[in-house]
């Protein structure tokens, strides 16, 4: 770097640049949070949906699956599983409830989590609510 560009100029770019972009980020964050209710349909977050999120977390589902594309890439995307399963919560519940305890020889298999009826209902509600978030039309198709 040329000598006419001094260390204090470099420092000023660092300080000025980061302060400016931190402030801009905060402004954008504020605007985003303000507009979110229209996209996340939070009025539909019932206690059951909240419980479903807790069951999702307590069993570390994100350790294999993605949800809106985030998580692990070992098992299918679940933000649109409600649509993929024909908008039928019972199919989701049935799938989770009937996983074989010892797995399937040679193949990937979801563990048997022994969820209660109430927890199964909650997870299905949570996945239904998730499928209705306005996420800019992602994933590209039903396969996730």
């Amino acid at each position, binding site marked *: *770097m040329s000598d006419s*560009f001094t260390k204090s100029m*470099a420092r000023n*770019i*660092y300080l000025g*640049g*980061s302060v400016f*972009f*931190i402030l*801009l980020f905060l402004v*954008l964050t504020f605007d*985003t*949070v303000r507009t*979110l209710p229209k*996209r*996340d349909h939070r009025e539909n*977050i019932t206690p059951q*949906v909240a419980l479903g*999120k*807790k069951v999702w*977390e*307590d*069993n*570390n*589902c*994100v*350790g*294999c699956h*993605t949800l*809106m*594309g*985030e*998580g*692990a*890439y*070992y*098992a*299918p*995307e679940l933000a649109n599983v409600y649509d993929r399963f024909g908008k039928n919560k019972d199919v989701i519940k049935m799938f989770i409830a009937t996983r074989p*305890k*010892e*797995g*399937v*020889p*040679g*193949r*990937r*298999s979801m*563990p*048997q*989590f022994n969820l209660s009826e109430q927890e199964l209902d909650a997870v299905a509600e949570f996945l239904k609510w998730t499928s209705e*978030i*306005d*996420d*800019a039309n*992602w*994933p*590209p198709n*039903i*396969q996730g």
Partner: protein
Amino acid sequence: MQYQSQAVAKPYFIAAIGLFVGQILFGLILGLQYVMGDFLFPEIPFNVSRMVHTNLLIVWLLFGFMGATYYLVPEEAERELYSPKLALALFWIFLVAGALTIVGYLAVPYATLAEITGNELLPTMGREFLEQPTITKVGIVVVALGFLFNVGVTVLAGRKTVVNIVLLTGLTGLALLFLFSFYNPANLVLDKMFWWWVVHLWVEGVWELILASILAFVLIKVTGVDREVIEKWLYVIIAMALITGIIGTGHHYYWIGLPEYWQWLGSVFSALEPIPFFMMTVFAFNMINKRRRDHPNKAAVLWAMGTAVMAFLGAGVWGFLHTLSPVNYYTHGSQITAAHGHLAFYGAYVLIVLTMISYAMPHLRFRQPAASARAQLMEMWSFWLMTIAMISITLFLTAAGILQVWMQRMGEEPLPFMVVQEKIALFYWMREVSGLIFFVGLMLYVGSFFVKGEARESVGSAKPATA
């Protein structure tokens, strides 16, 4: 080693290397589970081994950052560390807490772990990379506060160099942003939005400050180039990192329910994110070309150059590959993401920690600037094996990802996820073989610490090394 208290870095480095070995073992298990779905099932299901793999990575990198800090801060500040006893106490607290957490992951089902650690009271578990029980998270905060206090007092009371101030800024940011891991609302969209304040603003924000300052420190030491020149570069690099990286957060906001303007902001700013990494490459090679001494620790110089190149490739090039929103629409959450994740973490953060360990360990172990020629040779072999193996892991995962995107998301008749996974299994097998080569490289690395032979003190050319 100029100050007694720098010695506290040594246990941190040893723990980091030990946990690194554990991380890679679980990586091999994961790779096998990709192609042999029932491997270790149901004893260690995939989600558990993945959690161990990623959490060990984070913990050992933190050990590495802390060790690097304890080593370089006294030397830069020109005074002893405020309290070596506190540093040692925090080491054991962090190690025991980390070990207990990993044992918890492996010993009981995750839901049981959530129950017995009282996740009920303040639910923070079950989110990617933040799987630690809430009580462990509190422990991390306590350790971080004690660490920052110890280091902060030392820095502020001593000579204030740009390296020290930038490092301290990065570490403070790391601790502050981690506090967002305690925010976990029932609204998934808000949860995800602020989850990135920990994850993105760590690895594409404040961690870059830590990386750049450690690299600057090592380059000052091994090249003997004037500090003024290196500090100027350091400022420009971190300026670009924050100018591009903060709004660059937007590249994670495309498809999780946030407004569409993030597609523009995220695409433009994250497309600029390779700039600081490219500058780091230019910087490292420039400084080494302008070196005023030939440092006897050739291995450390190799690791430093490796960091500069691989960070640019992994974080810069592989990040850019899928960061524009029209591309990311198809690649989001595919094996391409995994490919980028592997090369970026290895190139930027694994290599910077190994650079620092390589530079500091001869001082800590023999009070000499370099290990024996044989030990260095073995270390350099391990660099090449691990680096080439990681590049091939990345290439195989990228190939798998392209096929996955094509078959599952782009064709006329998109195929289901599991069908596609079976079709691309060959690439997963090749990734696993590459993983084994990585493991051989890692064993050589560990072995290099046990090679006998005289440590080297003298320098070949012009100006003698004082460092």
